């Protein structure tokens, strides 16, 4: 879709006066059956995931697998030398399976370390970040999204998107400064 001036349309957005207004608007847009849309706020709004029809984040699964990887790495790094590469006898203590309790602290630390890395990289990758440029930044008012602005944006890629219908629902839900955001 293009505007008369020849710009590719990315989306249509509106600004809302408060977090609760945005919350109510999100429920309306969800119920209207839109799929490719998003809300923007300076802080996470409690209950917004349900209002948008989103489930629980599956990032926890990534972190769990990170933790398991960390634990297995520690097991490998500790048992490998002790049982094969470099059996070390200290204070006459055993180095076979009976020495396992002394390995627990490092197993724990490695589990936490790998889980934390998994959480950090997963949140970036799952959110498609880092992404220095994004069409939404073409909207001058959007700067307030990191300060005190609440925005709802319906993308032009949404199968239900028509200029008329999008404008109608944004107006009906109380949106202000309704704007067409350009792709470039």
């Amino acid at each position, binding site marked *: 879709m293009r505007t008369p001036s020849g710009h590719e349309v990315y989306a249509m957005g509106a600004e809302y006066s408060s*977090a*609760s207004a*945005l*919350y109510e608007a*999100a429920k309306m847009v969800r119920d209207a059956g839109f799929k490719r849309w*998003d*809300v*923007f*706020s*300076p*802080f*996470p*709004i*409690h*209950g*917004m*995931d349900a209002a948008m029809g*989103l489930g629980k*984040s599956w*990032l*926890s699964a990534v*972190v769990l697998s990170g933790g398991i990887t960390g634990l297995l790495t520690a097991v490998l*790094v*500790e048992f490998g*030398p*002790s049982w094969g*590469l*470099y059996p*070390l006898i*200290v204070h006459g203590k055993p180095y076979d399976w009976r*020495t396992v309790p002394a*390995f627990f*602290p*490092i197993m*724990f*630390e*490695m589990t*936490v*370390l790998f*889980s*934390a*890395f998994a*959480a*950090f990289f*997963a*949140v970036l990758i*799952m*959110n498609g*970040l*880092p*992404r*220095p440029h*994004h069409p*939404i*930044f073409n909207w001058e008012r959007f*700067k307030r*999204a*990191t*300060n*005190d602005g609440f925005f709802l944006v319906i993308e032009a890629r949404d199968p239900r998107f028509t200029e008329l219908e999008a404008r109608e629902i944004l107006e009906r839900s109380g949106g202000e400064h309704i704007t067409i955001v350009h792709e470039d």
Partner: protein
Amino acid sequence: MNDWPTAQEVVQEEAATTDQPLARKPLVLNRRNFSWITERISGVIEQPAPRWWWVCFTITGTIAMFGLFCLGYQISTGVGTWGLNHPVGWAWDITNFVFWIGIGHAGTLISAILYLLRQKWRTSINRSAEAMTLFAVMCAAIFPGVHVGRVWMAWYLAPIPNAFGVWPNFRSPLMWDVFAVSTYFTVSVLFWYTGLIPDLATLRDRATTKIKKFLFGVFACGWRGSNRNWRHYEMAYLLLAGLSTPLVLSVHSVVSFDFATSVLPTWHTTIFPPYFVAGAIFGGFAMVLTLLIPARAIFKLEDIITPQHIDKMAKIILLTGSFVTYAYAMEFFVAWYSGNAYERFAFWNRIFGPYWWYWWVGMLFCNILSPQLFWFRWCRRNILVVYFVCMCVNAGMWFERFIIIVGGLHRDFIPSSWGIFIPTWVDIWTFIGTLGIFTSLFLLFIRFLPMIAMSEVKIVLPEADAHAHSPNGNHSVAADGMERI
């Protein structure tokens, strides 16, 4: 029959008519709004550096440079420049290490444990407390690094295959320490940076110069505040908090294993892990207040870091101080009850031996008695009293570690092997140097990064609640800004 109101209706009726039922004090005073928070916190770093900042930074920077000089001198000459000798092989170096690591723990407690416990007041202080954690761990890491003597051999601690086919001893508490402290630092950095991303985006959108826009843009990773992003972000934040919680408890436990797994009287005790963790949080909260009380006054952040926040931190100092007092009492009791002559002597020596005044001043006055002032609300609300107690606790916790380490080493089983420890100027100035490094890093932090988590403080404002209008028409935010439960 149906005319009778149900129990639910009665409760709702009463709740609607009662004046402010169970009102909570607002966490941000004077009904500040979202943009005020952005303006005030971003303003701190967008204004040119005030003159006092340059004066402070020059002083702390000079001290830091002298500390680095002492480290260079110690590395190039040898550990003999410190006062270490037989039988005291660990003294100020390991005291400083435990002291700094302990300070870091309060930051993680605030950022992770209070988050899991849904303590919303943490949002005003968590960013600076986490920064403090990072800088304290950096200072801590210096000491075990250089006390081994040949720093360039430090890579032997890493479990990497090498040409000699030698592997580290994974069963050694010192090796556990390497893993615990390096994991702690790494996870703290990840947690801190994850929390910073939305605030860096705020600064990016406010940036006035190209270079600022570029730098904040790069570090904000293109954050847009989208709810599809917040969804994953909040999960990541929750999990990082959940991971940091057992981690922080493990780190000081592992530090205490360095002592507890040995055979020395006063060291070889099972009480050490919880005793060390409580002491770490105790000392760390004192340091948080030491840094934040001046900062809130200078930057006029009294509406965000309110007397209520200071009051709560004072209560935590009182609580953890009580744990510590209990641990001290238990040590003496067990020394007597065990019937072990060496253990009994060691504790007698702690009070009446050559280092007697360390115990009377450091442990008894600073750690046990001074926090008792916090039983009184008047003391918790008086900034000067709070500051005095915090300074006592800062000093007292250093003395406590010295008493544990040198007190345990200098007189062990055989009187013929007794000795005394006297610090050299290099000992003293290396420690003062790390105080300079710590404060310099903190001054740089408050100049260049938002010292309060803007996106998190905004959540605790009443208008951030999307459900402000409850179904029965009862407004959950009273007209005077008091939040109802």
